[in-house]
C-alpha cells in the first residue's frame, strides 16, 4: 500500500468531546423528504446499542493483544465509539420529544446486541472463539461505517437539499472519526485470528443483518412518523431514487466496496481519505465547541 506524501499516517486516535444542540433540528431534517431523512435516521436507531456493544467486546479483547501500537489504537477506538454512542442516543431523545416514539425498535436492536450477540457465559477456548467471532463481525460492520463515513464527507447533495447543519455535523463528525479509525477493527481481527473464511462468514452475516434491519427500521420510522402517519410505505426500494439523488448512499457504491472487502489483500486504509477526515474534524462546529 502506498500513501500519498500529503496523507498523514501513524495517527494517534483520541476521542473528541463534542457538543450538539438539538433544539432547533426539525423532524424532517432533509426538508420535504421524510423518505431520505428516515433512511439515514435508521442509523440513529442502530448505533447507540451497536457501538456500546463494540466497546464491550473490544474491552474484552484488550488483554489478548500482543502489540503495543494496536493496543493504543484499540483504546483510542473504544473512546471514540463510546462518544458516538452517547451522541446518537441524544438524537433518540430528540425524536421522542417530537412525537416519534422509537422505543419499540430500539428494544429490538438491544435484543440483537445484548441478547443474540451478548455474553454467552462461555469460558476458556470457547469463550475466546466467541470473542473472535464478534470481533470478525465488528470488522465487517466497520468496513461499512468507514465507507458510509467517506460517503457522508462527500455528500454535497445533502447541503444542496438544505439538510440541517447540526445533523450534518453529527453525521460528518462521526463519519470522519470512522474514516480516521477505519483500520482498527480489521487490524485487531487480523492480529488475533486472521482467518479468511471467518471474514467471509462475518461479511455474509453482516450484509444479511444490515439489510433486514435497514428495511425494517425504515418501514417502522415511516409508519411511526407523526407527520407522515404511514401514508408512504417505507422500504429499501426508495434507495433507487435517494441514492441516485445523492441523498443516501447508493446500492452500487456499497456493492463495489463489498467486492473490495472480499479480496484477501483488502486494506481499510485504501477506503476514504485520512486527510479529508482530519480536515473536517478541524472545522467541525461540534468538535470545535469542545476545544474551549
Amino acid at each position: 500500500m502506498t500513501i500519498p506524501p500529503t496523507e498523514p499516517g501513524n495517527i494517534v486516535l483520541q476521542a473528541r468531546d463534542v457538543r450538539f444542540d438539538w433544539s432547533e433540528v426539525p423532524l424532517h431534517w432533509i426538508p420535504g423528504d421524510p423518505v431520505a431523512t428516515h433512511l439515514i435516521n435508521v442509523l440513529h436507531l442502530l448505533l447507540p446499542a451497536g457501538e456500546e456493544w463494540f466497546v464491550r467486546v473490544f474491552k474484552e479483547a484488550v488483554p489478548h493483544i500482543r502489540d503495543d501500537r494496536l493496543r493504543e489504537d484499540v483504546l483510542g477506538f473504544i473512546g471514540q465509539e463510546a462518544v458516538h454512542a452517547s451522541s446518537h442516543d441524544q438524537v433518540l431523545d430528540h425524536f421522542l420529544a417530537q412525537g416519534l416514539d422509537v422505543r419499540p425498535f430500539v428494544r429490538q436492536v438491544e435484543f440483537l446486541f445484548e441478547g443474540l450477540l451478548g455474553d454467552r457465559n462461555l469460558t476458556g477456548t470457547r469463550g475466546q472463539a466467541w470473542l473472535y467471532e464478534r470481533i470478525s463481525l465488528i470488522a465487517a460492520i466497520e468496513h461499512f461505517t468507514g465507507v458510509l463515513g467517506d460517503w457522508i464527507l462527500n455528500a454535497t447533495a445533502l447541503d444542496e437539499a438544505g439538510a440541517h447543519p447540526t445533523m450534518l455535523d453529527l453525521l460528518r463528525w462521526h463519519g470522519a472519526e470512522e474514516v480516521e479509525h477505519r483500520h482498527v477493527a480489521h487490524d485487531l481481527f487480523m492480529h488475533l485470528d486472521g482467518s479468511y473464511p471467518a471474514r467471509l462468514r462475518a461479511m455474509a452475516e453482516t450484509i444479511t443483518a444490515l439489510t433486514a434491519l435497514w428495511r425494517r427500521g425504515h418501514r417502522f420510522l415511516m409508519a411511526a412518523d407523526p407527520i407522515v402517519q404511514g401514508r408512504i410505505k417505507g422500504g429499501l426500494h426508495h434507495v433507487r431514487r435517494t441514492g441516485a439523488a445523492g441523498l443516501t448512499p447508493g446500492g452500487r457504491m456499497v456493492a463495489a466496496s463489498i467486492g473490495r472487502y472480499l479480496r484477501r489483500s483488502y486494506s481499510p486504509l485504501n477506503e476514504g481519505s485520512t486527510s479529508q477526515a482530519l480536515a473536517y474534524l478541524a472545522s467541525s462546529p461540534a468538535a470545535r465547541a469542545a476545544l474551549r
Partner: protein
Amino acid sequence: MTPSQIPPDLRGRRARDPFWVAASALFNGIQRVRSLRTPVLPPVTPVDRTLTTVVREVRQEAEDVVGLRLAAPDGRALPAWQPGCHLDVRLPSGRRRQYSLCGDPADRRTYRIAVRRLPHGAGGSLEAHALAEGDLLTVSEPRNAFPFLPRDRYLFLAGGIGITPLLPMVQAARRLGADWRLVYTGRTRASLPFLDELPADRVEIRTDDDHGVPDCAELLTRAPAADAAIYCCGPAPMIDGVRAAFAPHGPATLHFERFAPAPVVDGRPFEIELRRRGVTLRVPADRTALDVLTEYDPAVAHSCRQGFCGTCRVGLLAGDADRRHPGDTDPDSLLVCVSRASGGRLVLDM
C-alpha cells in the same frame, strides 16, 4: 423484561416478534452446529514495535538544547514518518519520554529529536542530555498526535522547544508552495534552537527580553489570511492562551498537540483496593488512579483520560469518592481517570 429475551413486535400485537424468533433460531442454530467442533485458535504472534537506535550525532542547538540524530545500528532505513510525528523514547533509566521528530521526513536513515534541559524537571531531560555519540537508545515507531494537513495558508506559533514539530511542517509548507508565517517566541534569542534553519523573510522572532511576554490574541493577528490553519506548539500556558483567544466560529482552524491531560489539582494520596484481584495500590497526590492502574496492568480499559468518554468506569464497592467530572454521577461506579477518593481507600470491582 431483559434485553436477552425476544422482544415484542413493533406494533405491540405479539409478545414475541416472529422475525426475531426466526432470526434467533437461525443464528443460534449456526452457533450450535459450529460448537460441535472444539474451536482451534491460532496463537497470537507478538509484534515488537520498538526500534534499537544508536546516537549518531549530538549537537548543541541552543543554550540548554541538544539535538540528537538517531540511526539504525546497521544503517538501514527507518520507518517512514510525517510532520507532527513523535517518538516514544525509553531512556537508560527506563523513563519514557515523547519527543517530536524535527528532521527531514525524506531522510529515511536518521531521526532527529531535540531536548531542552529542565534542571527542575523529573529528570528525563537531564538523562537525554547525558547521552553521547555511540550510545544505544530504544525508541517506538513514530506516532502522530499532531497531523499536518495540506492547506493554502498557515500560521505557525512556536514557543521555545515547541519549534520541534513545527520545523518539518514549515519545510512541508514551503514545498507545498503555501503562504505561511511563523512566530517564534522564547525567553532570549540564545535559547531558541534551529534559527539557522528558518528562512528569515517569513519568520518573526519574538523574545521576552526584547518584547515582553507575548499576548496570544496579538499572535493570532499574524495569520496571512482569515482562513489560515493555525498550528501551535509551546508551553501549556501558551497553548491555553491561544485556544482562549481563538475565534471558534471563523474560517480559520486551530491545531495543537493534545499532550497528557491536565495535571491533578489539589490531589490527596489514597489507596485503591482491587477486590477481585486481591491487590491494593497506592495513588500519590499528583497522579490519577488510572495512571497507577495502567502501570500495574496495561490492559486496563481506558481512553480519553479526561472523564468524558466513560471507558474507564469501574464498579465502586466501598469508599468515599471525590468525583471530578459532571458525567460521574452514578454512586456505584467511578471514572478512575479523573475521580479520586476524598480520603482513605476505595474498593473497586476489578
